C-alpha cells in the first residue's frame, strides 16, 4: 500500500441563501408547495429573459475573496446544454472560461502545519429542479413516471473546484469541514448537507508514490456526509490500488456512493458524456465587478476559521481548537473564557455537552454560561444538564442551579446507602460473591434516592466500603 499515492480533487456546490433565485425574482427557499415558486423565467416559457441577482454575484465574489481567489475583471455566463426533465430550458446557465473567481487557495491547518489546497475556480450557476420518480408501487427505482417540482430550479449555486492537491481521505474531510464553516460564517449559505444546500463530488486517482503523473480518475458523486465521503474515498483508493496491483487498469467512471450499502456501485454512464456545447448566453451581459464593490466585500470578511484554529491552538490542544472552530463554537468559547471560565473546562463543556443541546451559540449569555461551567464539579450532574439545556432561553440565569450543591458528605450518604443495602440482601450477597457489576446497581439506587444530588465518586467509594463490611 505504501508505494502508492492518492490524488484527490473536490467539486463543491453551495446553495446561496439569497431571497430570490439566480435569474428571476421567484422566492428562493425550502418548504413551498411544489411549483408555487415558479415563473416564466424558471419554467423556461418562450421569450422569458433572465436577469442576474446582484446579491448572488456579490456573494460569489465574497466567497472567492475568502478563498484568496483573483476576482475576474470580466466574467461571463455560459449555457451548458443537455436534456433532462429537471432542466426546462435544456441548458443550465453556468460559467465556463470566464468565471467570477479563480486561482485561489484554502489552507487547512493540521497539527503538522498547513495543507494548502489550490482553488481552481469558484463560479455562479443555477440549480436544477427536483425530480421525483414514481413507480406503481411508490416512489422507487424502476419508475413509470417522473414528477417535477421547479421550486429549486434556477436557485443560485456557487460551484467551487479544487486542484488535485489532497492525498488522503482525512485531509479531504477536514478541507470540506473548513470550507463549510467558512461559507456558514460568511452567511452565504446554510450549507446543510442533509438538506442538500451543500453537496460535493470527489475525484480520486492513485499513482506510484513519488511520481507526478495523473492517472485515470473516478468520480464519487452526490455525497452528503463528511464521514461517508471519507469512507468512500478510502474504499476507492484501496480499490484502484488493488486493480493496478493485479495488473488491471482503472476505467474512468462515476460511482454513486450509497451509505446504506457501504459500497460504490457504478452509475449509468452519461451518454455523449461531456459534450455540453458551452457558449456565452446571449440573454445575459458580462459582469465587470466594480472595484469599490470588491473592496467593500473584502472589508466585510472577518478573521477566517483557519486562522482562528491556529490562534486558539496556542491556548488549547489543536484538536480542541479544531472542534470549537469547525463546530462554530469558538466565539462563544472566547466569551465564556473572558467571563472567567477555565479555557480547557469551557472547551470540554462546549464541544461535548453544549453541542448536544442543539442550542444556537449566538442565543447564549456567555457570562451565565461561564458561571455554570465554573461550578460544574460542585453541582449535581442532573442540575448541570438541566441548566445547560436552558442556556439558550431568554433571561437564563445560572444562580438557581448553582444553589443545588452536590451531596458529598459521607455522614449524610451513609444512612441512605445502608438502607439500600438492607433492602437488597440478594444483590449484596452476589456482589460479595464476586459479581462486581452490581456496584452500578447500588450506586444507581443511591443516585435515585438523592434525586441525583449525590456526588457519584463519594457514593462509589462508600458503597464499596459498606458492602465489604
Amino acid at each position, binding site marked *: 500500500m505504501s508505494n502508492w499515492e492518492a490524488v484527490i480533487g473536490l467539486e463543491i456546490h453551495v446553495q446561496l441563501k439569497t431571497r430570490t433565485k439566480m435569474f428571476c425574482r421567484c*422566492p428562493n427557499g425550502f418548504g413551498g408547495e411544489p411549483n408555487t415558486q415558479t415563473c416564466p423565467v424558471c419554467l423556461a416559457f418562450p421569450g422569458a429573459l433572465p436577469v442576474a441577482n446582484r446579491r448572488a454575484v456579490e456573494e460569489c465574489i465574497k466567497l472567492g475573496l475568502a478563498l484568496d481567489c483573483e476576482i475576474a475583471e470580466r466574467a461571463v455566463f455560459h449555457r451548458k446544454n443537455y436534456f433532462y426533465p429537471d432542466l426546462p430550458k435544456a441548458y443550465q446557465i453556468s460559467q465556463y472560461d470566464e468565471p467570477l473567481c479563480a486561482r485561489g487557495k484554502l489552507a487547512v491547518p493540521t497539527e503538522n502545519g498547513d495543507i494548502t489546497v489550490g482553488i481552481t475556480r469558484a463560479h455562479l450557476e443555477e440549480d436544477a429542479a427536483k425530480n421525483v420518480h414514481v413507480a406503481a408501487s411508490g416512489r422507487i427505482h424502476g419508475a413509470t*413516471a417522473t414528477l417535477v417540482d421547479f421550486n429549486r430550479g434556477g436557485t443560485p449555486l456557487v460551484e467551487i473546484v479544487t486542484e488535485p492537491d489532497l492525498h488522503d481521505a482525512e485531509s479531504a474531510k477536514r478541507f470540506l469541514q473548513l470550507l463549510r464553516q467558512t461559507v456558514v460564517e460568511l452567511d452565504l449559505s446554510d450549507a446543510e448537507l442533509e438538506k442538500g444546500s451543500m453537496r460535493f463530488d470527489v475525484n480520486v486517482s492513485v499513482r506510484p508514490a513519488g511520481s507526478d503523473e495523473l492517472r485515470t480518475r473516478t468520480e464519487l458523486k452526490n455525497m452528503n456526509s463528511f464521514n461517508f465521503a471519507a469512507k468512500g474515498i478510502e474504499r476507492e483508493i484501496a480499490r484502484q490500488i488493488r486493480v493496478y496491483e493485479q495488473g488491471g487498469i482503472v476505467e474512468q467512471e462515476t460511482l454513486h456512493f450509497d451509505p446504506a450499502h457501504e459500497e460504490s456501485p457504478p452509475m449509468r454512464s452519461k451518454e455523449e458524456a461531456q459534450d455540453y456545447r458551452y457558449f456565452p448566453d*446571449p440573454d445575459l451581459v458580462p459582469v465587470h465587478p466594480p472595484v469599490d464593490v470588491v473592496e467593500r466585500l473584502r472589508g466585510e470578511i472577518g478573521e477566517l476559521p483557519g486562522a482562528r484554529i491556529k490562534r486558539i491552538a496556542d491556548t488549547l490542544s489543536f484538536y480542541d481548537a479544531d472542534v470549537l472552530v469547525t463546530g462554530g463554537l469558538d466565539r462563544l468559547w472566547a466569551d465564556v473564557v473572558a467571563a472567567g471560565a477555565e479555557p480547557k473546562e469551557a472547551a470540554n463543556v462546549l464541544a461535548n455537552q453544549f453541542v448536544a443541546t442543539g442550542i444556537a451559540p449566538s442565543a447564549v449569555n456567555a457570562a451565565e454560561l461561564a458561571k455554570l461551567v465554573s461550578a460544574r464539579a460542585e453541582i449535581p450532574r442532573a442540575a448541570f444538564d438541566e441548566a445547560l439545556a436552558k442556556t439558550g432561553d431568554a433571561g437564563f440565569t445560572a444562580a438557581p442551579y448553582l444553589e443545588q450543591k452536590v451531596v458529598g458528605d459521607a455522614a449524610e450518604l451513609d444512612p441512605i446507602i445502608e438502607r439500600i443495602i438492607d433492602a437488597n440482601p440478594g444483590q449484596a450477597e452476589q456482589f460479595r460473591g464476586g459479581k462486581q457489576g452490581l456496584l452500578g446497581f447500588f450506586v444507581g439506587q443511591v443516585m435515585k434516592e438523592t434525586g441525583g444530588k449525590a456526588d457519584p465518586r463519594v457514593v462509589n467509594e462508600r458503597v464499596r466500603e459498606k458492602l465489604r463490611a
Partner: protein
Amino acid sequence: MAGISRDEVLHVARLARLELTDEEVGRFQEQLSEIIEAISKVSQLDLSDVPPTAHPLEIANTWAEDEPRPSLTLDEVFANAPDRDDGYFRVPPA
C-alpha cells in the same frame, strides 16, 4: 473546405434527441456544411485585434435587486403542461 461530416451530423442529432432517416442525414449534412462555409468566410478577415463578441451591446452589470416578486398561480403554471399530477409536472420516466 469547411464542412460537416456524416458522423458529426449523427452526433448532433443524438445530442438533440432527434432520429433522422438516411435521406435526412444527407440533406442536413449538405445544408449545415453550406451554413458553416458561409460563416467561415469571416475567418478570411484579419481579426487579431477584435475581441470575441458574444453580445451585440457594449453593456455590462445589468442586475436585479434581490427582492421577491409574486410567482405564477398553479393554474398559470400548468396552463400548457401536457400532464399534471397534483402540484407536479408529470413526464415520462427519466
